[in-house]
C-alpha cells in the first residue's frame, strides 16, 4: 500500500454498465413486441376510421364505422354486431362455469390414492388438445343423427336434439365444448392451489370444528383466492378471444346466431364476402375496449401486489 492510488480510468460502458445493461437486454424483445403488437394496436385504431377494402386506397370516414356499428344517428345498430355482442356476454357468463367446475374436479381428484397422478393428467388432457380438434370432436358428438349425444339421450328416452343447428342452442353447444378444455385448465390451477393450502390452517379449522362444506367455504376457498383470480382472468380472456371453436363448429351459423365479436371481426375483414377492413377494425377496437377493462383490473391487481412485495 503505497501513497494514495487514484481510481483507475474506466471505459464509458464500464462506468454505466448497470444503467445500460437492462436496456440492451430489453431491446430485442421490445423491438419485436412494438413492431408486432404495440404499433399494430395503434394502426388498427387508425384503420377503424377509414373505409378500406384492404387493396385499394383508404377513404377517411371519421366515426362512420362506429356509428353504423352502434346505430348512432338514424340507423339501427348493426344487427350482427348486436348478436355478436350478446353472444360474447353469454360466453363470458357461461364460460365462467369452468371455474367452479374446475374446482369441483380438483377437489374430487385431490387425494393420494394409487395412480392419482395419471388420473390427474388424463383429466387435464383436453387442455393440451387444439381447439380445432376439440371443435371437430364436439361437432361430431352433437351430430343430429349419428352423434354420441343423441345416442346417449336415446338411452334415457330423450332427444333427439340438434344442438348446433338450432339457433337457440347452438351458442350454448359451442360454449359447452369450450368449457371442456377450460375446466381442465381451471382444475389444474386449483389442484396446484390446493397443494399450497396451509395444512396447519386446516388442522386449526378442524380443531375449531369446521368440516366438509363449511371448511371449504370458510377456510379453503379464501386460501384459493389467487388460483381463483387467475382462473377468472384466463377464462374471461379465453371467452372474449373465442374464435377457433366457432369457426370450426358452426362457422358463425346457423344464420349468424353463433357469431361473437372476434369472429364477426374476422368475417368482416377477411372472409369470403368480407374485406371491409375499416369496419372490421372498428369491431376489434370495441372488443379491445371491453377487454381493456379486464386488463386494467388485472394490472391494477398486479400493481398492488408489486407494491406490497418490494
Amino acid at each position: 500500500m503505497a501513497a494514495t492510488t487514484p481510481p483507475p480510468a474506466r471505459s464509458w460502458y464500464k462506468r454505466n454498465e448497470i444503467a445500460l445493461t437492462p436496456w440492451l437486454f430489453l431491446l430485442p424483445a421490445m423491438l419485436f413486441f412494438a413492431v408486432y403488437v404495440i404499433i399494430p394496436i395503434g394502426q388498427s385504431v387508425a384503420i377503424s376510421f377509414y373505409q378500406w377494402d384492404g387493396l385499394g386506397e383508404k377513404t377517411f370516414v371519421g366515426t362512420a364505422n362506429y356509428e353504423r356499428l352502434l346505430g348512432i344517428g338514424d340507423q339501427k345498430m348493426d344487427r350482427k354486431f348486436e348478436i355478436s355482442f350478446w353472444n360474447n356476454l353469454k360466453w363470458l357468463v357461461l364460460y365462467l362455469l369452468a371455474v367452479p367446475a374446475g374446482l369441483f374436479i380438483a377437489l374430487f381428484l385431490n387425494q393420494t390414492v394409487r395412480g392419482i397422478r395419471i388420473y390427474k393428467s388424463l383429466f387435464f388432457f383436453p387442455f393440451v388438445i387444439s381447439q380445432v380438434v376439440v371443435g371437430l370432436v364436439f361437432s361430431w358428438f352433437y351430430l343430429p343423427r349419428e352423434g354420441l349425444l343423441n345416442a346417449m339421450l336415446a338411452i334415457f328416452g330423450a332427444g333427439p336434439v340438434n344442438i348446433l343447428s338450432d339457433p337457440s342452442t347452438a351458442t350454448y353447444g359451442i360454449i359447452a365444448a369450450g368449457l371442456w378444455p377450460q375446466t381442465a385448465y381451471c382444475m389444474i390451477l386449483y389442484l396446484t392451489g390446493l397443494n399450497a393450502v396451509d395444512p396447519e390452517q386446516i388442522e386449526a379449522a378442524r380443531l375449531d370444528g369446521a368440516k366438509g362444506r363449511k371448511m371449504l367455504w370458510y377456510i379453503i376457498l379464501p386460501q384459493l383466492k389467487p388460483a381463483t383470480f387467475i382462473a377468472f382472468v384466463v377464462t374471461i380472456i379465453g371467452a372474449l378471444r373465442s374464435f377457433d371453436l366457432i369457426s370450426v363448429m358452426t362457422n358463425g351459423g346457423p344464420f349468424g346466431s353463433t357469431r361473437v365479436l372476434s369472429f364477426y371481426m374476422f368475417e368482416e375483414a377477411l372472409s369470403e364476402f368480407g374485406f371491409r377492413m375499416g369496419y372490421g377494425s372498428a369491431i376489434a377496437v370495441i372488443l379491445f375496449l371491453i377487454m381493456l377493462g379486464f386488463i386494467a383490473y388485472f394490472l391494477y391487481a398486479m400493481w398492488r401486489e408489486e407494491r406490497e412485495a418490494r
Partner: protein
Amino acid sequence: DESQLSGELKITSDMSNPAPRAVMESLAAGFGELHPDVDIELTIVDREAWKTQIRNALGANPPDVVNWYAANRMGPYVSAGLFEDISDMYANGDLPGLESVKGALTIDGKQYGVPYTYYQWGMYYREDIFKELGLTEPETFEQELANCEKIVASGRACYAIGTKFLWTAGGWFDYLNMRTNGFDFHMELARGEVPWTDPRVRETFANWRKIIDMGGYVADHQSYSWQEALNFMIEGDAVAYLMGNFAVAAMREGGLDDSQIDFYQFPKIADVPQGEDAPTDTFHIPSGAKNKENARAFLQYVTSADVQTKINAGDALGQLPINSESSVDKDEFLEQGFEMLNTSAKGGVAQFFDRDFSAEMASVGMEGLQEFMVVPDNLDDILERLEETRQRIYE
C-alpha cells in the same frame, strides 16, 4: 414457339372435390407433357376455404394461375387491379371458340380471365324411388308439390339440401324467384334495383314456404355441407336434390348408378320467361404473377376445344364445355342440360346467387335465406334486414 416455354408455373386451384381434383391434376400433367421444360407446381386448396383465401393469395407473392368465378365475383379483384387484363388474347384470336361466353369475363370492355366449364342446375332425383311411388317428372309447380306430398307421405324428404355453407339455399331462391317473377326481375333484384320488401319478392318466398311447411326438406339441413347432405339421397331418405351438375359425379361415387338418378328442369311456376342457373368457373392470371407467359399458355391450353371436351366429359368433371367447338359428352345429364340451356332458358342464364349479387349483399342475403328455411316465420324481419343492407350498399 410453344415448346420453347420454360421456367415455372404455379397454379393454385380450388378444385378440391375428388372428381375435379383428378381433372385438375390431369390438366397440369397434360400441360406438362406439352411443355416438359416448365416446372409446374400445383396447389389444390379447399374450395370453401379458397373463397376467403384468394384475397391473400393475390396480394402477396401470387401464383401464376388461379381459379375463380365469373361475373360479379371477380369484380373486386378486377377493380383492385389484381387480375391480369387478357383482352389481347381474345383480340388476337388466341382463344378460339370463346367468343360467345366472353361476356361473363368482361368488365368495362376488357376481359380478365377464361372460363373452363359451366354447368346447368336442376333437379336431380332418384328415378327408382319415383318409380316405386309412381311419380313422374313434374312440369308445373303444382305437380311438383303434389309429388312432394306423396314422397313425404312415404316417410321420406322430398329434397336433400345442406345449407351449412349457405350458398345451396341461394340456388333454391334463384330458381323460385326466376320462375315466379322471371329472369329479368331476378337480375334487377340482383343489381339492387328492386327492394327486397317488394310484394313480388314476397310471392317468391310464399311459394318457397309451401315446400317448407309440408316438410319437403331434410331436417337439420343447416348442419350439413352439400356433400354431407348427399348421403340422404344416396341412402334414399331424400328423393331429389336441386344442384349443379357436378353433383352427378359425387352421386355416382356414392354408389348410385345411372338407372337410379335422373334429372329434370325446375318446373314452371308463373308464365314468365324462364331463366336457368349455369355458373361459369374460370381461370385467371393474377397481375402479380411471375410467369405470365406460361400462364397464358396454360389458359390457352385449358380452353382449347379438345381439352374442353375431355375435361368436361361425364367421367371427368361431368359438366358443360365452354368452347363452342368442343362436343358435349354422351352423358344423359350433360345432354339434357345442354339442351335445356340452349332451348328452354329463354329468359337468360344466371351465374348464381353469390355471383350475381354483390358480395356483401350475397353474404347477408344467403344468411337470410338459410334463416328463412329454418324459421319461415321470421320472413318479415329477414326481408327488412336485407332491404336495409341493399339500401346501404346500393344507395
